[in-house]
């Protein structure tokens, strides 16, 4: 497949010759790895190699439903996601590519008193931490989503919702391609279909990676994988508190516009929005059992669809186009694991991104780039250290995945 591609504005990929040594090797060519490569290159570190075992952006980045929001639960997570969302707001201009970011807002529906109680805390905490977020009643909900079934005397009545106007959806593949093109243009080597089979570690210090083709020396190695984060960490004899679960998603045939915000229900374990092309994207909680299997399941799609119809009965005659699933690296406190590790010098983690990774990618990349550049962990990601699981500083970020429930 050797074919020279003309070098012009819209050349997204190239096929670099892999060198024997790099300053930084990033494992994982998804949105996290590429975002990091982009911000590293922007700050002058361009001797960087990004490796992926599949095609570029083919893991979680290809499977995400691409909802961007920052209305999290804890005082630690909210500022981080707030800043990430801000980076997204300018990302089209930064990457010189229209990423089709639609800030259509987000409604987290409460069907019960106990659900509303959790939403209230989020509304308050977010507002206090400068994230636009407030509770709305059925009247405002019906204005925002006229197609929702707001009848009172039914199961799962729509009682109130948490509204988060700056949330939105983005063309996820374009984000990956945009970061890849930018990093590539600044000299980063991006190499798909190359699997890392081992890490080279000498005296508790990382020396490089071993791929199926060859050994590549590196001063720093970053684990930016999803689905296999614990497998890669295992190569450095580090056991991550991660269990990997598939998350099932589906999309319908295209329809004329009827829904122009993202809607989520924690009670029903489902969320939905309509793309600009007209398809309705439906996502749900992660499957109850850990698995690396990305096959589509029947039971989960059944629940996903039934629960969607409870909010939007008008969709019952609409046809499902396809279903798929992606892997989520779930952590016990629903928050990511970012930063260096104590036991292996030069090995940096940015993983444990569960079902909340895509929205975090710009800020995670930027912070890890800063960490690499300065050697200091930036304030925003300090709460997400691996050591929190040993010293009682777990985060309780259950709002990271309101539709998901594992633990």
């Amino acid at each position, binding site marked *: *497949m050797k074919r020279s591609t003309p070098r012009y504005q*819209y050349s997204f990929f190239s096929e670099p010759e892999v060198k024997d040594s790099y300053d930084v090797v990033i494992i994982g060519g998804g949105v996290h790895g590429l975002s990091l490569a982009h911000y590293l290159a922007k700050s002058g570190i361009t001797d960087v190699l990004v490796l992926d075992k599949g095609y570029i952006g083919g893991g979680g980045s290809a499977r995400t439903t691409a909802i961007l929001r920052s209305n999290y639960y804890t005082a630690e997570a909210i500022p981080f996601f707030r800043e990430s969302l801000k980076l997204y707001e300018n990302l089209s201009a930064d990457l010189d590519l229209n990423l*089709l970011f639609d800030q259509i807002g987000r409604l987290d529906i409460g069907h019960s008193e106990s659900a509303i109680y959790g939403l*209230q*805390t989020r509304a308050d905490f977010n507002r*206090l931490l400068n994230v636009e977020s407030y509770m709305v009643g059925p009247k405002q909900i019906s204005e925002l989503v006229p197609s929702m079934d707001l009848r009172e005397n039914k199961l799962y009545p729509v009682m109130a919702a948490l509204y988060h106007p700056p949330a939105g959806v983005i063309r996820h593949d374009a984000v990956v391609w945009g970061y890849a093109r930018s990093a590539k243009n600044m000299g980063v080597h991006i190499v798909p279909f190359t699997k890392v089979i081992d890490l080279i570690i000498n005296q508790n210090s990382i020396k490089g990676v071993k791929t199926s083709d060859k050994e590549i020396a590196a001063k720093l190695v970053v684990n930016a994988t999803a689905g296999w984060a614990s497998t890669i960490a295992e190569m450095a004899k580090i056991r991550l508190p991660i269990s990997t679960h598939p998350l099932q998603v589906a999309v319908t045939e295209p329809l004329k*516009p009827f829904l122009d915000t993202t809607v989520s229900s924690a009670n029903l374990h489902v969320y939905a929005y309509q793309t600009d092309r007209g398809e309705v994207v439906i996502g749900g909680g992660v499957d109850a059992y850990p698995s690396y299997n990305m096959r589509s*399941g029947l039971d989960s799609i059944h629940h996903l669809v039934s629960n969607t119809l409870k909010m939007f*009965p008008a969709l*019952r005659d609409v046809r499902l186009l396809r279903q798929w699933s992606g892997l989520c690296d779930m952590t016990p406190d629903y928050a990511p694991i970012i930063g260096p590790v104590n036991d292996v010098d030069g090995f940096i983690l940015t993983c444990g991104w569960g079902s909340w990774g895509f929205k975090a990618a710009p800020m995670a990349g930027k912070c890890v780039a800063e960490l690499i550049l300065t050697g200091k962990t930036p304030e925003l990601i300090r709460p997400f250290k691996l050591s929190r699981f040993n010293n009682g500083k777990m985060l309780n970020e259950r709002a990271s995945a309101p539709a998901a429930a594992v633990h």
Partner: protein
Amino acid sequence: MSKAMRTVRFPSGELIDRLKPIEFTFDGKKIEAYEGDTLGSALAAQNIKVLSRSFKYHRPRGLMCVSGQCPNCLVEVNGSPNIRACTTKVKNKMNVKSQNRWPTIRFDLLSILDKLDLLLPVGFYYKSFYRPSLLWSLVRPLFRKAGGLGRINTESTKTSEKAHKTMFSDVAIVGSGLSGLSAAIAAAEHGSKVSLIEKHDYLGGNNKDVEENELITKVLSNKSISVMTGTPVFGFYPPDIITLDTPEEMIKLHCKKIILATGCHEVPIIFENNDLPGIMSATGTIKLLRLYGVIPGNNVVIITETNTGYTQALELQSYGLNVVAVLDSRDKTDSKTIKLVNQADIPFFAGVKSIKAVGSQSIKNIKFDYCGEWYYLDCDLTCYSGRLQPALQLALQAGCSTEFDANLNTLIPTSPPNGISLTGGLIGITDKDQSIKHGRSVGIAVAKDKGDIHLSLQQDTTKKIEFENLSSRKGFICYCEDVTSKDLSQAVKEGFTDIQILKRYSTITMGPCQGKMCLTNFLRESSVMTGSRQAELGLTTLRPPIEPITLGSLAGPGFIPVKRTPLHNIHLELGAKMVEVGGWIRPYSYTDPYKEVSAVRNNVGVIDVSTLGKLDIRGRDASKLLDFIYVNKISNLKAGRVRYGVMCLENGTVLDDGTVAKLSDNRFFVTTTTTNIEAIESWFKWWLAADTNLDVKIANVTSELAAINIAGPNARKILQDLTTTNIETDEFPYMSAKQAVISGVSSIIMRIGFVGEIGWEIHFPSVYAEYLWGKLYSNNVNAFGVEAQRILRLEKGHVIVNQDTDSLTSPLEIGLNHIVRSPKVDYVGKNQIHQHHNRGVKRKLVGFKIDGKTPTPKDGAAILHQGVPVGRVTSARRSSINQNPIGLAILPEDLCVQNQEVLILINEELYLATVSLEPAYDPKGIRLKE
């Protein structure tokens, strides 16, 4: 309707009944049809060619594949969007509308986009409208309006879903073409019970003809074959399930063996304007003529890359159509074929390089490049022929891999896993005799449980020469998304050389056909453009559903059990306002919650607490199990006594709480929170299973027993009148339990005090619920609901698990240090609780009060200290004592001191609150013990 408008229909067609005329409307116009017609055949019979407008360019589109694959005949039927006209049977009075057009299907304003295609190449939206950043938000609404196909009726709240069913089959055969029919007969003859599944309403497949009809007769008379038509198989799910969407039900079919005979179908040949209405698959055209008696055109041009085009030309001629010419991409055709077409006087051109179609609303003529010159042919119908794509979705989902097949010149499935067999067009067999032969041997092999079969197949050795239309501007590869050959080559130029990202960038295979029309062409063109062989390119994942299935079918009838207590009707009679709590429908209040609170505090009240989870735990080792599950000690409880118990997960966080009553030496009665009973029952059984030597029996008696709590200063008098058991404190102190007879009903009664007044919780067989309620409740006794109960318990500072705790709450944070046992004994969560203890508790649940008649904080409200959010309110209500707000809150440990001041956010304002470590009501608990 003027006669001139109608194309003549044949007097008969196999599937229509001329004696039964029916009618429907299309965009308001009346259309005559016959029973058996599809919407597609009926509209074709009226010479209505434009049925839809395309997704991006709003180009006119009409019948094309006539087999339910392509997106070109999607219409709205009776308000339901995106229905395939070509496979949907006409029903009388159907209301059919075209989609994605304005104002009419013939004249669509947005078809202007078709002229602007140079401005709208592949991925154009990624490259424009983002500077300034506001621009996209202005342009986006236009995009949305232009996109999408059908409309939904958002007023609709009907939820009539299909029933779901699970069935089992020895041998399931998917597809009823020649090979599928043959396999069915052979397997049945050799003793198998066969389910033959066909997505069309009739058996016989795409080429239903004389040979097929003979086999159909045999199939229908064979009692071992059950036939399911009109039944698309929409997915394979491991380990052995295929899912069927029958007209009545959704069936999960577990199969011991599956024979896939899903066949292959013609896919379009790429040339300029290859999407014009009037350009159809040759098979589809023959189907219209043969099965529905419809003549879709009179002068037909056939475009082919194989010999099939010539035989199809002869067949079309036999129906009386004028075959204008056969255009063949190959230089040479075999002499036998040439002889036949010459005899039939059909002109043909071999070695045609390139083709263009001309027409505005439908095909008018075909231009072609022959020996370096361009020629024109007038026509009103063009058939593409012979480029085949196997229907390999199901095979791949079932675990087959793919290989490149020289016969079909595309990928076919191979290496089926155990239990799966492949036959027919699916694996490249196109010859009729071979299909029958292969189908039979597969059928026999499956029935006899034999392994692989090896039949040597005739290979087509003729050289494959395809039309050269690379990069044509309006040569469509993908009809769903309007992606042209030129778009694809542009994407490849931009570096998208991998098939997966090429798909994502170009959106080919991502529309309603899900690759059925475009996969073969996508792979071929990509292989040429990227310079890789097709076998190397790989394949995108072909995901379920294979056939479009409605959300309603997939959802099935909703089944959410509503939990009602045995006193439900009484509550309604008393006029209670009901509320859902943890899946139960409970009385919120009967009158005013504060009146109910006052009645309990000053007189007596009764509340239905049947929703409590209840476990009857018996056996020699019951106390051993309870000791292990609860963080506090249970084994030293004396018979007749009750203890509050808390249980934790392994990670040391609070799972549930409730009461444990020891009724006799080996019998305990345990209550759990309303929401958690199912989980707690499993939790007990999970740990019991960990030590099978334990003699413990656990019964969940939640629904067997009703429960009523009677509480208040006058409760004793009411209760004592109904029982001979002495309930004076000397005999029946606080936190004790007895089995007693209450008004003739044998009950378990516990003296406990969640609401802070003297009271008894009475558990008794739920059949007597209304009777006993009638005895307890009277003019002097108030019924109280959950809201009054919440206020009462909050005044006492009692915790509700999940309301006042979260997924990280340890018992040490909710003031239960005194009941947590030492690390010397083992119990669930011990290690984590003690680690937590050693690290120090960082936050706690404490009471708070606000002085003054401020608004009450909402449950969940944020709490600030020094301008920073530090905690949250878990429950808050107005106190019945002084009307001021009181509540519980989670705060950092250093703020959990008496009278600490914090600020609470209420309706955008901050209010001063003070921490209170004592309950607001009866802090010493004297009233409970009287």
